[in-house]
C-alpha cells in the first residue's frame, strides 16, 4: 500500500526539482515557475502528513500556502512586468544593482 513515506519521498523529489530550477534558470519567469513547484511540493507533504495522522491542520496549512502563492504571483508578475518595461529584459543577470 501507499504509505506516508511514499508521499513524503515524492514531495522531496519535487522539491529538489524546484531547487534545481531555481538554481539553473536565469529567466525570471522560470524562477517563478520553480517557486510554484517548491510550494506545491511542500503542500503535498503537508496534506499527506495531515491525512495519515488524521489531522485537518495539514490541509489548512496547504490552503494558506495556496493563498500566499497566489498573492506572490500577483505581486511578482507585476514587478517582472515593470522590470521588463524598464530594461527590456527578464534575464536574471540584468538584475545586478545590488553588486557590492
Amino acid at each position, binding site marked *: 500500500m501507499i504509505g506516508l513515506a511514499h508521499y513524503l519521498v515524492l514531495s522531496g523529489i519535487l522539491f529538489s526539482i524546484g531547487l534545481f530550477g*531555481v*538554481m539553473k534558470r*536565469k529567466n525570471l519567469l522560470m524562477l517563478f515557475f520553480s517557486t510554484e513547484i517548491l510550494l506545491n511540493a511542500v503542500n503535498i507533504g503537508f496534506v499527506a502528513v495531515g491525512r495519515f495522522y488524521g489531522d485537518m491542520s495539514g490541509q489548512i496549512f496547504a490552503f494558506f500556502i495556496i493563498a500566499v502563492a497566489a498573492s506572490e504571483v500577483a505581486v511578482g508578475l507585476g514587478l517582472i512586468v515593470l522590470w521588463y518595461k524598464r530594461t527590456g529584459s527578464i534575464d*536574471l*543577470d540584468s*538584475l*545586478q544593482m545590488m*553588486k557590492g
Partner: protein
Amino acid sequence: MEKYLYITLFAPLVGSLIAAFFAAKPKELYTGILTSALVGISFLSSIVLLNYVDADTILHVKMMDWISVGNLSIPFGFVVDQVSIIMMVTVTFVSTIVHIYSIGYMEHDKSFNRFFSYLSAFVFSMLILVMSDNFIGLFIGWEGVGLCSWMLIGFWYHKQSASWAANEAFIMNRIADLGMLMGLFLIYWEIGSFQYDIVFANILNLNINTVTWIGSFLFIGAMGKSAQFPFHTWLADAMEGPTPVSALIHAATMVTAGVYLIIRASDIYFLIPDVGYVIASLGAFVAVFAASMALVNRDLKRIIAYSTLSQLGYMFVAAGLGAYWIALFHLMTHAFFKSLLFLGAGNVMHAMNDELDIKKMGGLYQSMRATAILMTIASIALAGIYPFAGFFSKDKILEVAFNHEAYLLWFALFIGAGMTAFYSFRLVMMVFFGEQVHKRLGFHPHEARPFVIYALTPLALLSIVAGFLEYSFHAFVIDLLRDYKFTLDHSVGWMLIVATTAIALSGIAFAVYKYKRGGFGAGVESLGIYKLLVNQYYIPQFYNNAILKPFAAISTFFWKQIDLKIVDATVDLIGKMFYNAGGKTRQIQSGNLSSMLRWMVAGIAVMLVLAIILRPMV
C-alpha cells in the same frame, strides 16, 4: 583622638595631591611651603598621639571595609600603639625637616613642585606602612614607599644613571617582595587572617616549621627593603637621587621598614630563635661588609650610604637576637644623625656644584662652618661617642651580642664600630679639614642659606640628646614589645662600654692623625684589598655577569625566537587567514541573484547533511 590619627595620616596626602596639580608648572614656592606645613601638622598631631598613647590606651580604628570576599576580610584599619607611634613621630619629624630643607636645596630645580608632590606621597605611604593594623595594609605601604622611592631616585630621569638606579632599586625590591608575599600567603593559608592581633594570637598554635617558613619569607622581604646582603647593591646606586631623598628615604625611613617589619612581627620571630640568629649573623656580616666598603670609597654620598647599610646591619643584629626595643631605639637615633649627615652632605654638594669626590674637597671648614659643625656632630653620633645618641643605642646592641654569648657577632660588630668611627672621620677630615684641594680646582664654596641650617639644628640637637631618652623610651615601648633581659655582670657591661668607646676613639684618632697629614700615600691604592673594596667586592660586576647578561640573553632569545617567530607569527597567521578568507569569499557577494540562490541551496544541503549525521540514534 581618631581625629589626630586621620590628620597625621592624610595631611601629607593632601599636600602631595595639591602639589601634584602644579607638577608640570614652573617652580611655585608655596607648594614647598604648603607641603612642609602639612607634614609639620602631621608631625604635631603625631606628637599629640604620642602623649595620648600609654600602657593602657592604644588607638585602634577601622576606617572602612576594604576587601571582603568570602572568608577574606581586610579592613582599612589603623593602629597607633607604642611601636607605630615611635615610627610615626620619627618619620614625620625627619620628613618635616627634610621638606623644609628641600625648599632650599631644590631652589633652582625646574621640577620643584613635582619633587614635593613625590616627597609628601612618600610620607603618606610610609605612614600607611607603619600605622596599618594588618599585613596587607603594611604591604600596600611597603609597595607605596617602593614606588615613591623609584620616582625619587629617578627624579632626574633624563640622567641615564639615575633612571638605571631607580629601576635597579625597584626591581631588586620586587624580587625580595616576592618572598614577602609568600610569607603573607602562608600566614593567610595557615591562620586565615591578616590582622596583626589575630595572627599573633594564633601563631603559637602553628607547627614550628611553618612559623620558620613564615619568618624566613618575611625576612626576605625585609632584606630587600633594608638592602641587606645580597640585595644591598641598590642602596648605593640609589644615591643618584636628590640628596634630601637620600636623607629621608634611604637613610631614615624607608630602608628601616625591614627592621620595623621584624619588630612588628616580633611575636613570630620570638618563636624561632634560630631564624633570629641567622638574621643577626647576616646583620653582623653586613655591618662589617658595608663598613669596609665605606672605608675606601671616594664618593661622599656613597660613603654615607654604606654607613647606612652597616647601621641597618646593627639593627638586624639587635632584632634578630630578640632585643626588639633596642633595634627600634637604634632605628630612631640612627634616623636623626644619619639624615643630618646626609643633609649636611647635601649642603657640601651644593657648595661644590654637585661634585661628590671627597678627594677634591678639603678645608671646607673655612667657608662652611655651620655645616661642618653639624656634620661633625652627626659623625660623632654615628661613631658612638658618649654622650651622643649613637653611643647609647649602638653600645646596647654590642652588649646584646655579648650577652647572647655570640662572641663572633660581637667581635664583628666591635670591628665594625672601629671602622665606622674611622670612615666617618675620614669623611669629615677629607671634606672639611686638611689641604684646600677645592681652591686649586677652582671651586668657590658658599654656605647654605640660613633657614636650611636652622632647619637642621633640631636634628643636631636630637643627635646629641636622644640617647638620654633611653630609659623613658624603654619604659614606653616595653608595654608592647618583649623586654630583653641582660644577664651580664655590671662590670662586664662597663668593660664592654670602655672597649667599644676605646676602639671608636682610636678609629677617630687614627683618621684624624692620618688625614691631618694628607692621608695615605698612593701606595695603598695598588693593594689588592683596596681594589677589592673599591670595586665593592666585585659584587655589582658579578651580578652583571652572572644574572643580568644571561637574563638579557634569555630575554633576547624569547623575543627573537619565541615571541616573533611563534607567538607573533601565529597571531599574524590567524589574521592573514581571515583576511584571505574574506578576500576569497568577497566574490560571493556578486549581487547576482542566481549565484546567491546557489549559495542558499548549498547551505540547505549542508544543513541536511548535518541533520543526517547528527540525528539522534534510535
